[in-house]
Every structure is written in C-alpha cells, then in structure tokens.
C-alpha cells in the first residue's frame, strides 16, 4: 500500500514519517519511532495502556490511525520528564508504590496528567472516575489513586 509522508510533533520534537494509512498511531510510535513506552495490550480500546495525549487530551493510540494524527502535538510517556527531572506525577507514582509490573503505568500517568491539567484539585472520587478506562491487574488501584492525589497536592503547592 502506498505510503504517505506525515509530520507531527512528539514530545516537542518534530517528526516526519512515512506511514501506510492502516497503521495505527501505536504502531508508528512503537515500531517506527521505537517509542515503546506507549504500550499495546487489548487492542480494543478497553484497557487504556496505549493512552497518549493528543493536543493534551487522552486518546487511545491503538484505536487511532496515525495518518489522522498528522500535524498534531503528541505527548508520550517518554516526553513527560524534562531534562532528567521527573514530572511530579511520575515521582508520586514511584514514592507511593503505585507501580508494580508497570505495564499500565505509562497510560495511567498520562491519563492522570490530563486529569490534573483539567482539574488541578480532584477529589478521590474524581480521580477514580477519570481513571476508569485504565485497567491494572497488580495494584488494586489504591496506591495509584493515592499517588495522583499526592501529585495534585505537590503540583498545587509547588506553584507549577
């Protein structure tokens, strides 16, 4: 099938890639750009492990054709830490024991980021509701929710 050259910005860096129309964004990130922090799990839009932020919004990279993301700003887990400094959500996930096997973690953290960008002061219930599309089999979600609340507090107090 004919390839098309598309441009997008990933983690602040402009990319030019040749994609076949049926390639998903997940496939292009992982297989062409080797950004394997974005996971592929269910392939059915049900688990959230493939979540990336497109123009700041949480989207399922396994259900998005790469070609439809052209000219967009995309944030993957690899772009969250800045200059070796972890994002407060990443720090909180580490400190609160919110990570076990870690396979759901990139999607969880990015979804949490979208939440805190939208609502810097969520309640426990709001965190739970926002993460309802992200499955985890290890943690029982308790420490994940703790971590998001702790990150919110840190970000608010840190004036970020």
């Amino acid at each position, binding site marked *: 099938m004919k390839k098309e050259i598309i441009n997008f910005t990933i983690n602040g860096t402009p990319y030019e890639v040749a994609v076949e*129309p*049926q390639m998903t964004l997940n496939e292009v990130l992982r297989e062409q750009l080797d950004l394997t922090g974005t996971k592929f799990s269910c*392939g059915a839009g049900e688990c959230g492990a493939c979540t990336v932020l497109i123009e700041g919004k949480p989207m399922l990279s396994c259900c998005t054709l790469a*070609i439809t993301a052209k000219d967009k700003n995309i944030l993957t887990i690899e772009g969250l830490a800045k200059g070796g400094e972890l994002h407060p959500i990443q720090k909180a996930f580490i400190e609160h024991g919110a990570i076990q096997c870690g396979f759901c973690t990139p999607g969880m953290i990015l979804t949490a980021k979208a939440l805190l960008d939208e609502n810097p002061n969520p309640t426990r219930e709001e965190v739970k509701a926002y993460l309802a599309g992200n499955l985890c089999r290890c943690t029982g979600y308790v420490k994940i929710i703790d971590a998001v609340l702790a990150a919110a507090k840190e970000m608010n107090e840190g004036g970020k």
Partner: protein
Amino acid sequence: MFRTLKPFEYFEPKTIEEATETLSKYGTKAKAYAAGVDLVPRMRKRQIHPKYMVNIQQIKGLDAIKENAEGLSIGALSSLRSIELSPLVKKNYMVLSEAIHSIASIQVKTQGTAVGNLCVATPASDVAPALFVLDAKFRVAAPSVEKTVPIENFYTGVGQTVLQTNEIITEILLPKLPAKTGGAFLKLVRTVADIAKVNAAATLTITDDTCKEVRIAVGSVAPTVFRAKKAEGMLKGQKLDQKLIEKAAETAAGEAKPITDLRSTAEYRKETTRVLVKRVLEKALERAKA
C-alpha cells in the same frame, strides 16, 4: 487474533459534499472514519473490512454544540465528552449527559463521537435511549441531498440503520422540551466500564400530577433500542402514582425481547427491564416536579 489492520485506501475530504461523493463512489467497500474507537477494534478483529476509509475529521464546523430556535444542534464530530460536559446539554437535556456519563472510559469519550456510537447501531448503545426519549432527529447528508431522519425511523436491526452507504449524519437535533419535563437514564453493567446488559431512559412532562407527555426507551433487550410505547400509553394523560408506574414498567418489560448472551440472560434482562424502567420513571417524575 490480529494486531494489525488490513490495508485500505485513505481519503480526507474537506467538505461534506466531497465526503459523500467519495462514499458514493465506493459504496459498501467504504467507511466513514470519525474517531476510530469503534471502527479500529472491529477492523482489527476482522469483523469489517473497509477497502476505502473516508476520514471526515477535516470537515470544518461539524463539532459545534449550539442552541437554535428549535432546540439544540450537536455537530457530528462533537466528542462524547464535550456533549456530556456541555452546559447547554446539562441544563436542558440532562438525560443525555447522564447517559454519556455512564460510559466510564475518559479516553473513549474524549476520542469517540455520539454519532459514531449511534451509527454502530448496537442495541446496547447508551446514547441512543437518551436520544429516543429526547425525540432527536438526525440531519443526514447524501450527495446533493439533505434530509432529516427521526431517531425512531433510524434503526432497522442489529448493526443496521436506514443510512445508505453514501450518507453521513452531520448533526443531531434536539427539540426544546416543555416546562416541567424531567428525564433520567440508568443502566446495568458487569463492571462500571462496560456496555449495558440493559439500559433505560425516560422523559416525563407533567402538569400537576398528570402525565402530559412521556417517552420510555430501553436498550440491549431487543435487536434495536426501542420505545416502550405500550407502557407510555398507560401513563399518558393519567395521574401518576407509584402503582401506575410499576404497572407501566411491567408492561415495558413485556415489550422487551431479550436474548441470552455472554453478558446476561434473557430472564435477567426481562426482569431488570422492569426495574430500570420503574426507576427511570420515578427519577424523571421527581425531576419534572422539581
């Protein structure tokens, strides 16, 4: 079993005309792409095999939610989440917001559109029952034609609608609701992030305690979402009390033709159709009175 998608040719029309013309050209081999959340998994599972993909995302002006003289217009590219959170929807069409709220995944709602959800024509749609009880109409574009289809005429079977292969919905139109109208939506699921085993929506308009207008819609218990008209007939023009509501709910359950599948049993669905219809009527009444 598969992880990749089969190849297809890709189009990116800039106008509705261009989109419908491309769809016309390729007929049943083409699919309109609005978000991918439903389409891509089905392609991955090899349930559908479009050879031509028509991405309508680049068509301008299809993502607005705005009030007009008749009521509310929701553009086809409006995301589920933008509809759920729209102050206009929340203020006047709470039942729709509530229905979308029941879809748990933020990603699905951010990416997915209401129109996309409707066009899949699953009997388990959460959006459809809300639109049934809001008496929604769809503005449909075909090459050089435009028409309006009431939701009641929209579905023809599981996965089937009256839409021709070259037609796309451009707008959802909601009429203004009379004063003293209340609505409610409920669903039963296996886990919170799930499609419905059974769902139900109702709107009620009252004067004093009398039911002026009523609409009841039930999902996942028949090949399509449907209006429980016999039950509605029992309520319309009547003074509403608990006993009557329960009788109407019983009747609505009688109108359901559920099946047993992996999500639930026919028996359970029948029984809980009654419970859900009763509950949405109670809640709608309470809201109509408020």
